[in-house]
C-alpha cells in the first residue's frame, strides 16, 4: 500500500486530506468526528476579533443538474459566530486528544497591523500547527474590509502575510481568492510577504440561482438575496488552472500549494497533486455526503498509486506541471480524428447533431441496409475537436485517434502561417 503521508510548509500529515476552513470545521464536535473518520487535518473555521459576527438564517444556495445532482453550492455564511476564547479552548482540546492530526487556525481581520498580530498570536498559542490567512471570503466580510477585499489587493496580501510571519513562528498559509484577474499577482505577493504556502481557491463570487417566484437571488433571506461564494465540483476546473499557474510560474517557484476547489474523489485529489499541490483541502463534498467520503479518497488514491508504482505522494507530485504549457508551445502539427466504433454505438445520434449543428459537419448519418443508424466520421472534415466523444453517452465508443503524419513539432511562433513569423 502506497504511503499517503505528505509534508507541506514543514508540517507532516498522515494523509493529504484536510477539511477546509468552513462550516464542517466550526467546532470541537465536528472536528473530532472528522478525525474519527480519518481526515488528516482540518483548517478551523475562520476566527475574527471579538465580538463574533452574527449570521443570517438561510445560508446556502444550490446549482442542481436536472437529476438533482449537486453541481455546486454557494454560501453567504460569515466567519465563526462563536466567541474567540471558546474556539481556542476547543482547538487546544482537539490538539491534545488527536496529536497525530493537523489543525491550522484560519483568521481574518481588518487591515490593521495590531489586530492581525494580536489575533495571530492568540491562535498560535492554542497549539495550532500553522495559521491560514483568509483573504478570500467574497461575501459579507469583504463589505467590512476583510476577506476578498484584502485578497484582491496584492499589496495588502503581502502586508498581512508579513504581519503574521512577524508575529508568530509557525508556518503561514495565505489563502487566495479566485475573484481576481490574474492569480499570480496575489500569489507572488504572498511569497513576497513570506508565506510558506498558499491555499487556493477560496469560493468564487456567484449568484447561484434566482427564485422566480420571490424574484430574488437564492438563498433568499426574507425577500432579498445577495451574492455568495460558489464551491463544489463546478469550481474544480477553475481551481486546477489557478494551481497550475502558480506551480509553473517562475515568480512563484518554491511556493507550496494547499489545493482547494471541488475535490470530491481520489481522482480529483490526484489531479491536483499532479499539478503540484502538496496537500489538499475539502469542504463541499463533506457537506454533501458527510465525513465518510474520506474513506474512498484514501483507498482510491492509494490504489491508484499502487497501480502506477508511486510509493509516495512526492513520487508523482507535480508530474503534470511540465506538460502544462502556454498555447504557443503546443504542437501545430499534431492531428487527431474521431473514430466511432459501430459495435458499441447505440445509435442515439448525439455525435451527429452536435457536429452538424455546432462543429464541422464531419459525422455522416445514414440508414444502413440492415436498418441500423450508422454514424461515420468524415476524416477530411474532422478537426479533432473531441466534441462528439464528449457528448457520446457510451464510454470509449468514440476514440480520438492521432494521425501518424511524421511531421515535426512546430509551435505557432514557428509556424509558416503565423503573420508575425512571416514578418521576421
Amino acid at each position, binding site marked *: 500500500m502506497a504511503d499517503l503521508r505528505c509534508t507541506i510548509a514543514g508540517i507532516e500529515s498522515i494523509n493529504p486530506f484536510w477539511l477546509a476552513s468552513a462550516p464542517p470545521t466550526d467546532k470541537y464536535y465536528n472536528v473530532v468526528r472528522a478525525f474519527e473518520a480519518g481526515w488528516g487535518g482540518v483548517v478551523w473555521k475562520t476566527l475574527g476579533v471579538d465580538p463574533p459576527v452574527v449570521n443570517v438564517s438561510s445560508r446556502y444556495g444550490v446549482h442542481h443538474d436536472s437529476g*438533482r445532482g449537486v453541481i455546486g453550492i454557494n454560501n453567504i455564511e460569515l466567519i465563526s459566530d462563536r466567541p474567540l476564547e471558546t474556539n481556542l479552548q476547543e482547538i487546544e482540546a482537539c490538539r491534545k486528544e488527536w496529536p497525530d492530526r493537523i489543525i491550522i487556525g484560519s483568521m481574518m481581520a481588518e487591515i490593521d497591523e495590531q489586530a492581525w498580530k494580536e489575533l495571530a498570536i492568540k491562535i498560535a498559542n492554542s497549539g495550532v500547527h500553522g495559521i491560514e490567512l483568509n483573504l478570500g471570503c467574497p461575501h459579507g466580510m469583504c463589505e467590512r474590509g476583510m476577506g476578498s477585499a484584502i485578497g484582491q489587493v496584492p499589496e495588502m496580501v503581502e502586508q498581512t502575510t508579513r504581519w503574521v510571519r512577524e508575529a508568530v513562528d509557525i508556518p503561514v498559509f495565505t489563502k487566495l481568492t479566485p475573484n481576481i484577474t490574474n492569480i499570480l499577482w496575489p500569489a507572488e505577493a504572498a511569497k513576497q510577504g513570506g508565506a510558506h504556502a498558499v491555499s487556493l481557491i477560496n469560493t468564487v463570487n456567484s449568484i447561484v440561482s434566482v427564485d422566480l417566484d420571490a424574484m430574488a437571488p437564492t438563498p433568499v433571506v426574507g425577500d432579498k438575496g445577495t451574492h455568495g461564494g460558489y464551491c463544489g465540483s463546478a469550481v474544480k476546473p477553475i481551481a486546477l488552472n489557478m494551481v497550475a499557474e502558480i506551480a509553473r510560474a517562475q515568480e512563484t517557484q518554491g511556493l507550496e500549494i494547499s489545493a482547494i476547489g471541488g475535490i470530491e474523489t481520489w481522482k480529483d485529489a490526484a489531479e491536483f497533486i499532479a499539478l503540484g499541490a502538496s496537500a489538499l483541502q475539502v469542504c463541499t463534498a463533506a457537506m454533501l455526503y458527510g465525513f465518510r467520503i474520506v474513506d474512498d479518497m484514501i483507498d482510491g488514491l492509494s490504489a491508484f498509486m499502487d497501480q502506477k508504482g508511486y510509493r509516495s505522494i512526492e513520487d508523482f507530485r507535480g508530474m503534470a506541471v511540465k506538460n502544462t504549457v502556454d498555447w504557443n508551445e503546443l504542437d501545430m502539427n499534431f492531428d487527431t480524428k474521431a473514430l466511432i466504433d459501430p459495435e458499441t*454505438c*447505440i445509435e*442515439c*445520434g*448525439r455525435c451527429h447533431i452536435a457536429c452538424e449543428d455546432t462543429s464541422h459537419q464531419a459525422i455522416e*448519418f445514414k440508414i444502413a441496409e440492415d436498418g441500423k443508424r450508422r454514424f461515420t466520421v468524415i476524416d477530411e472534415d474532422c478537426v479533432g475537436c473531441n466534441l462528439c466523444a464528449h457528448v457520446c453517452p457510451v464510454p470509449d465508443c468514440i476514440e480520438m485517434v492521432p494521425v501518424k503524419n511524421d511531421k515535426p513539432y512546430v509551435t505557432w511562433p514557428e509556424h509558416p502561417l503565423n503573420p508575425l513569423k512571416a514578418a521576421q
Partner: protein
Amino acid sequence: MADGLNHRPSLSGPSKDELDASFDDLHKPLNSIKAIAAAEHCLYCYDAPCIQACPTSIDIPTFIHQIRTGNVDGAARTILSENIMGGTCARACPTEVLCEEACVRNHGEEDPVEIGLLQRFATDHLMANATSHPFSRAANTGKHIAVVGAGPAGLSCAHRLAMLGHSVTVYEAKPKPGGLNEYGLAAYKMVDNFAQREVDFLLEIGGIEILYEKALGRKLSLADLKESHDAIFVGVGLGNTNKLGLDKEDIPGVEDAIDFIERLRQADDKTTLQTARDVIVIGGGNTAVDAAVQSKKLGAENVTLVYRRGEDAMSATAYEIDLARRCGVTVRLWSKPQSIKGDTHVKAMKFERTRIMNGKLVGTGETYKIPADLVLKAIGQQLNLSALKGLEIAGGKLAVSSTFATNVSGVFAGGDCIKNGEDLTVQAVEDGKQAAHAIDGYLKGDADG
C-alpha cells in the same frame, strides 16, 4: 349472457376491496421523483428511433426533455399535439413493441426509457392542473362534418376537425363515448374512469356534439348523413365477432371475450360479476390475454388460454403473455377447439392437438378435454358490412386511399374498420388525425375525395 355466470352457488371469491386492489393500475404511475429519474435516462437522441416507432409520431425526446426542465404541462402539449388520446395510449399502448422497443438504450443492454409511464406522468399532470384546454379552434369554417363512432379514431378526428375550425357531430351507437377505450381495454389499464375523463377533456375544445345510441343501420344511414353534412368520417371499428363454427356455440357459458370485458368495464361493483371456477379463453391476441388475466383477477381457480399455434405466432406481445403466466393463467399452445360439452350450460371443451405439416396447420388426431364453466372467445372481429353499403370493401374491411378517402366522395374512414387497421388505439388516433387533415383539404377543394 350475464346469467350464464350465475349458474353455480356463489364462490367465496375476493371481496370488493380485494377486487378493487387487484384491478388497480397494472403499472403504477410515476411520482415526480421517479419521473425525473426516468427522464434522466433519456439521451435526447437526434431524429430518435422512438419517434419513428410511434404511430402518432410524438416527439418523445422533446417531451421527456420538457419533463426534465420542469415544463411538465409543456411536455403534455407536445404529446397531445400529435395524439389527443396520449393519456390512454400511455396506459394501453404495447410500448414494448413500439417506442420502448426502439429506444437506443436497448442497444447498450440497458432497460429502455419508460416512455409510456413518462407520457402518463405528463398528460395526467396537465389534465389535473390545466385551467383551460391546451388547444384552440381556428376561425369557424361553417363546415359541418359527421363522425360515425365515438371511439379513438372518431374522437381524434373530431378533435382535429374542431381545431381546424369545423363543426362536428359524432354519432355513437353505444350510450357512452370512448369506444374500446371505454368498453374494450382491460380494467387494470384504465382505472378511475379514465376513458370518460379523457373524452371530457377532449371535448373542452368545443364545436363537437355527440349523439348517443345512434348506430348506422338503425334510423341512421350514410346517405342521410351525406345529405346533411359536408363530409363524413367513418370510424365504426369492428362490430362483429368471429365464430368458432362449433355446435353448441350459443349455449350459456360460451361468450365473446369482448362482451365479457365490456361487462366488466361497466360494472360499478365487480363482486357482482361472480365468475366461473374454470375458464377457457380461446385466442392468441391481447384481447385473449386481457380476458384471461381479468378472469383470474375476478377469482377463477383455473384459467386456460388456448391457442392453435405456437407462442411466436401469437399476436399478444411477449410482455402480455408473460403477464398472463405471472397472473396464474395456463397457456396451452398447438391446440384447436373441437367441440363444446354441456347441455344447458357449458361443462367442458375438447381440443385437438395441432402441428405444422408442409407449411399448414393440421390436427394430429390427438385430443384432450378441459373442464369449463365459462368459455371466452377472442378469435378476432369483423367489420359489420350491412350498414356500409356502397363503400368499397377490401379484405373484409373498408378500402381507403392514402388520404383515408373511401370510394364515395366526401366519405372518409379510419381506425380498425379500414384495410390497414392495426387493432391499436394509437393507430386509430393517428388515422383519425390524418383523416381530419384530409377532410380539411377536401373541404377546401385541394384534395380528392
